């Protein structure tokens, strides 16, 4: 991290022109996670936010693409197996032309957990050639868990590529049976399916050592949830 990306009094991190910023936040209540990022010309932001079992959160993050050629990538995984209350709001603002953004949030909702995801993409009138994508996918593991996902697009420009996709599903029975028919136990089959579901988020972690360490923690957390189902 360079001086240009320090958080200011307004709880904002500005990524200066041509700079890049990559960071993994281990939970949404991390004090270092600001309420707002500003990404300037040709700068790139790439952050991953994880939420492990037992952690509640209620956070809103605003990302402003403020200079041409800026890019922002925010992804997150949440693993809930108890009575967690997870509220995440992302406000992606494309203010100028020629910027890219990608949002990928994936989560497991077990126990009596409540997930609320709100993701908004705003493309300003002059922000032509914007490419903005958002995905939120959830696996519901219990009849008592709730997932509420609200994708929103507000587009004022006419030459843009934008998409959003949101799903709430269950574990795939056909996959589970296929794995079990190969001798993989039901528990391992469920863990494998959940871990592979979350892997697109985990693969975004650039530091290999941290990625492996977090993959181990994730594996254990998922296994605990499976044992509790």
């Amino acid at each position: 991290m360079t001086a240009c990306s320090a958080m200011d009094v307004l709880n904002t991190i500005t990524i200066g022109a041509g700079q890049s910023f990559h960071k993994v936040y281990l939970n949404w209540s991390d004090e270092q996670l600001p309420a707002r990022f500003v990404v300037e010309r040709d700068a790139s932001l790439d952050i991953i936010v994880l939420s492990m079992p037992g952690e509640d959160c209620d956070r809103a993050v605003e990302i402003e693409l403020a200079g041409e050629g800026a890019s922002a990538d925010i992804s997150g995984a949440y693993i809930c197996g108890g009575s967690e209350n997870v509220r995440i709001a992302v406000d992606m603002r494309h203010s100028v032309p020629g910027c890219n953004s990608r949002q990928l949030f994936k989560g497991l909702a077990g126990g009596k957990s409540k997930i609320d995801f709100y993701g908004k993409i705003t493309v300003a009138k002059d922000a032509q050639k914007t490419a903005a994508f958002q995905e939120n996918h959830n696996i519901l593991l219990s009849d008592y868990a709730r997932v509420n996902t609200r994708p929103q697009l507000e587009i004022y420009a006419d030459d843009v590529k934008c998409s959003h996709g949101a799903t709430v599903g269950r574990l795939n029975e056909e996959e589970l049976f296929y794995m079990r028919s190969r001798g993989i136990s039901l528990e391992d089959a469920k863990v494998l399916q959940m871990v592979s579901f979350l892997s697109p988020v985990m693969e975004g972690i650039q530091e290999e050592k941290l990625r492996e360490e977090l993959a181990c923690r994730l594996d254990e957390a998922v296994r605990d949830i499976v044992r509790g189902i």
Partner: protein
Amino acid sequence: MANDILLKIEGLRAGVEDKEILKGVDLVIRKGEIHAVMGPNGAGKSTLSAVLAGKPQFKILDGSIEFMGRDLLKMSPEERSWAGIFLSFQYPVEIPGVTITNFMKTAINSHRKGKGLEPLKAGDFLKLMREKMAFVQMKPEFAKREVNVGFSGGEKKRNEIFQMAMFDPNLAILDETDSGLDVDALRIVASGVNALHTPQKAAIVITHYQRLLDYIVPDVVHVLKDGRIVKTAGRELVAMIEEKGYDSL
């Protein structure tokens, strides 16, 4: 000889939800035998294979299945796999995010755990994989591919026979393995199955057509129609069905 019996199905009735599909099936398979189960669409062929592999959606209404002296119906799908039952799926399932290497490593080590053995060393596992992939002429780069994702029909079936070679099962059930295969792939798959067959093992080849049975020659041929085996004979039955169709039976 009774101890030659690998699989014994008696009075099996099974179905999904409220629908009875198998309406009383009896079948005895001895070591060393290859049985073909033929029949028109909707006869219950795939239900039979699913029930043998323990697919949870299928309900057993009556009857018994004994495999190597054990009550198969009391065993979970994974326990059946450990005991040496292998089902080659008609429609192999795609598993996004899981590579063939990771999938097979998990599966092989689950088998070993089931038998009280230590996990296979990484080097030994990779050597075994390379060997068995070459056996079904699968390109080495498939090891890194996600299981069945984006595979052609032939590649999926080859992947099934590769997995069969990895487990070297006592009873292989091939459910419509010939569907979606061109002649070359059919030959590779059939020669793989033949090479794995020994006097200690058995196979059930489920098929609608004669084609696969030109390459995997059965000892016994059954015709399944409307949930029952309506005829059992030697391999000469295959040619008769090809000529006269199922309606004549």
